[in-house]
């Protein structure tokens, strides 16, 4: 297809060149003939005869015509039998049929001639045949065969190759897509590999990106399903065992009461897991910023400090808060408080007595982005687990025995994302540091209402 277009366009190009060259050459020849005729006509008879002779004898290519005729049409000199019929004597170039006397074998052919009457009444005819046109055509044809035909062949070949290759690649993509649809979620669309990316590669890369994300989500959903089942089964199994023991009825009233109380505690934990799950889903689906106002994050930090300082004291943990001035933030106060509270709650839960927890707010060195950071010197999080802690239900093996929904950090991550903040976990040597950085700080999408919504 492409090759055909290429061949067609090169043919057109050659035709155009040929046409323009012909027109140009014809005009040039005609101008020469007219000029020659006019120059000759201005000479006297003897000079004209001499010039006609030189013209005819000097014309080795046999392309020139020159003759002088008496007013009655009899030839005086030159290589034409007579004034060709149909040639007006007006000094302009016309195409007429004529034969030359010095080369009878040629016969009558179309010749460009001009005739004009000189001072003594005789008729001067001068011109050239179309031989140059033949030469020109030959040159063009030659150029065509030497240049255009190989070029066309090349184009045709290249075009066919490209078309074939594209088709092969499309077939591969098609096959890969069919395998993916058939359930092979690890499969990816093929990329041509080296060299600059073409459109097909870029499209494939885009689709592969979508597939990566989908696979990640699928994996997360699957893992979440397993984890939900596991995390719910543990407390529910305990509840069941306790109730069964109570049903046997061989406990005293005090023991019965205590066992039922513990069973209720187990059910509460199961309920807390479900509530937290629903809340995360709600936050993740939420595009809303209705509760958002412009606030000073320091207020939230101070509230959290006040809320958690007593429990740090009872656990004998040094809880310090460090606030540097930062610009106001566009945030939901309740949600921000929940996120920071969750981080501090976690840090206090995992840090052993005598440990240290710090909560810091301030601009980051370099880009000045507002960062909320909670650091502790507790057991910390292993490097390979750091990315996982923000996914639902992830709990380090070391902390699995501790009570909790295992959803706290997922909740924090969901809130952070809603605020355009990036959650990050790092090493505090020893211990753990969690950062919420307002990198792509979000601006109000709509004008903030004059009266705060809270």
């Amino acid at each position, binding site marked *: 297809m492409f090759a055909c277009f290429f061949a067609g366009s090169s043919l057109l190009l050659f035709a155009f060149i040929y046409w323009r060259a012909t027109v140009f050459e014809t005009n040039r020849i005609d101008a020469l003939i007219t000029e020659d005729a006019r120059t000759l006509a201005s000479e006297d008879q003897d000079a004209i005869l001499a010039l006609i002779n030189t013209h005819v004898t000097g014309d080795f290519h046999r392309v020139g015509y020159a003759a002088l005729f008496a007013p009655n049409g009899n030839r005086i000199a030159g290589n034409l039998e007579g004034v060709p019929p149909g040639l007006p004597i007006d000094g302009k170039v016309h195409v007429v049929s004529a034969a030359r006397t010095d080369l009878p074998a040629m016969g009558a052919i179309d010749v460009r001639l001009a005739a004009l009457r000189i001072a003594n009444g005789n008729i001067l005819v001068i011109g050239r045949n179309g031989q140059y046109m033949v030469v020109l055509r030959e040159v063009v044809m030659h150029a065509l065969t030497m240049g255009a035909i190989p070029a066309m062949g090349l184009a045709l070949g290249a075009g066919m190759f490209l078309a074939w290759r594209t088709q092969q690649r499309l077939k591969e993509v098609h096959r890969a897509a069919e395998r993916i649809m058939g359930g092979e979620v690890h499969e990816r669309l093929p990329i041509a590999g080296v060299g600059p990316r073409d459109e097909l590669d870029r499209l494939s890369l885009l689709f592969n990106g979508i597939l990566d994300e989908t696979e990640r989500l699928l994996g997360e959903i699957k893992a979440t399903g397993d984890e939900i089942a596991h995390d719910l089964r543990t407390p529910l199994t305990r509840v069941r065992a306790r109730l069964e023991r109570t049903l046997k009825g061989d406990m005293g009233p005090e023991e019965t*009461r205590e066992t039922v*109380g513990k069973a*209720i*505690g187990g059910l*509460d934990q199961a*309920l*807390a897991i*479900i*509530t937290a799950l*629903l*809340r995360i889903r*709600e936050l993740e689906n*939420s595009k*809303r910023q*209705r*509760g958002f106002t412009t606030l000073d994050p320091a207020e939230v930090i101070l*509230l959290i400090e*006040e*809320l*958690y300082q*007593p*429990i740090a004291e*009872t656990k004998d943990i040094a809880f310090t808060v460090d606030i540097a001035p930062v610009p106001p933030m566009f945030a*939901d106060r*309740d*949600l921000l*408080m*929940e996120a920071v*509270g*969750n981080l501090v*709650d*976690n840090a*206090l*839960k995992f840090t052993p007595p005598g440990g240290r927890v710090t909560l810091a707010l301030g601009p980051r060195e370099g880009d000045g982005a507002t960062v909320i950071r909670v650091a502790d010197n507790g057991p910390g999080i292993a490097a390979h687990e750091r990315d996982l802690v923000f996914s639902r239900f992830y709990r380090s093996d070391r902390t699995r025995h501790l*009570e*909790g*929904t295992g959803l*706290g950090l997922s909740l924090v991550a969901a809130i952070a994302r809603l605020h355009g903040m990036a959650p990050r976990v790092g090493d505090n040597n020893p211990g753990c540091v969690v950062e919420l950085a307002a990198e792509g700080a979000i601006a109000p999408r709509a004008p903030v209402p004059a009266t705060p*919504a809270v």
Partner: protein
Amino acid sequence: MDIDTFDDQGWPPVTSKAHILLIEDDRETADEIIRDMADRGYMISHADNGRVGLERAREGKYDLKYDLLILDRMLPEVDGLSIISQLRAEDVPVPVLFLSALNDVDERVRGLKAGGDDYLTKPFVLSELSARVEALLRRPAEPRTTRLRVGPLELDLISREANRDGRPVELLPREFKLLEYLMRHPAQVITRAMLLEDVWNYRFSPQTNLVDVHIGKLRRKVDAPGDFPMIYNIRNVGFVLREPQ
């Protein structure tokens, strides 16, 4: 925990005999609520769809107006939000407690804006519901008062000073707010969630025993050694402040 602990059942609400209308379409949830409320001594009526519920709420029962509405957010025929808007438009002042499966913050705000007085998300614990019901039934407790008094305990809301039997009790600002909240709801079970929401404006269930620690600190200041205790722990539910016995 160094706080004297009692069980929930040991504290019959002083608001019993109040008349409650429950509008809830889920049969089992309704049964549980009705049984629990009846056990606590309340008179409770039930409507299982929004239209009937609205009519009942308007007219009362035997010309007796209801003292409180427990209203499900999603109902057949007329939904909870429409019922409350309708009642408020007709100047029916009955306190309303919303029940909803939707935990969305927006839903909560919408429910309270429409005229609801409290909002509880399903699933909930029955003792949480009854604590909130009692808090709503006791309102309003003289909101413009400048001094609160429960037995020997006195709180001056203007000078922000507290004393017990004339002995000053030194309180931090948030402890003052916490004690004020307890004293505005004397002899009444207050849940941890209620304290977090109303004292700290904090909607999040901490994994740590945060509230207990704050209450413990407050109690050590209020109940000095040798005093009769005034702040009690109610097992699995919350706390109560009452006159020493």
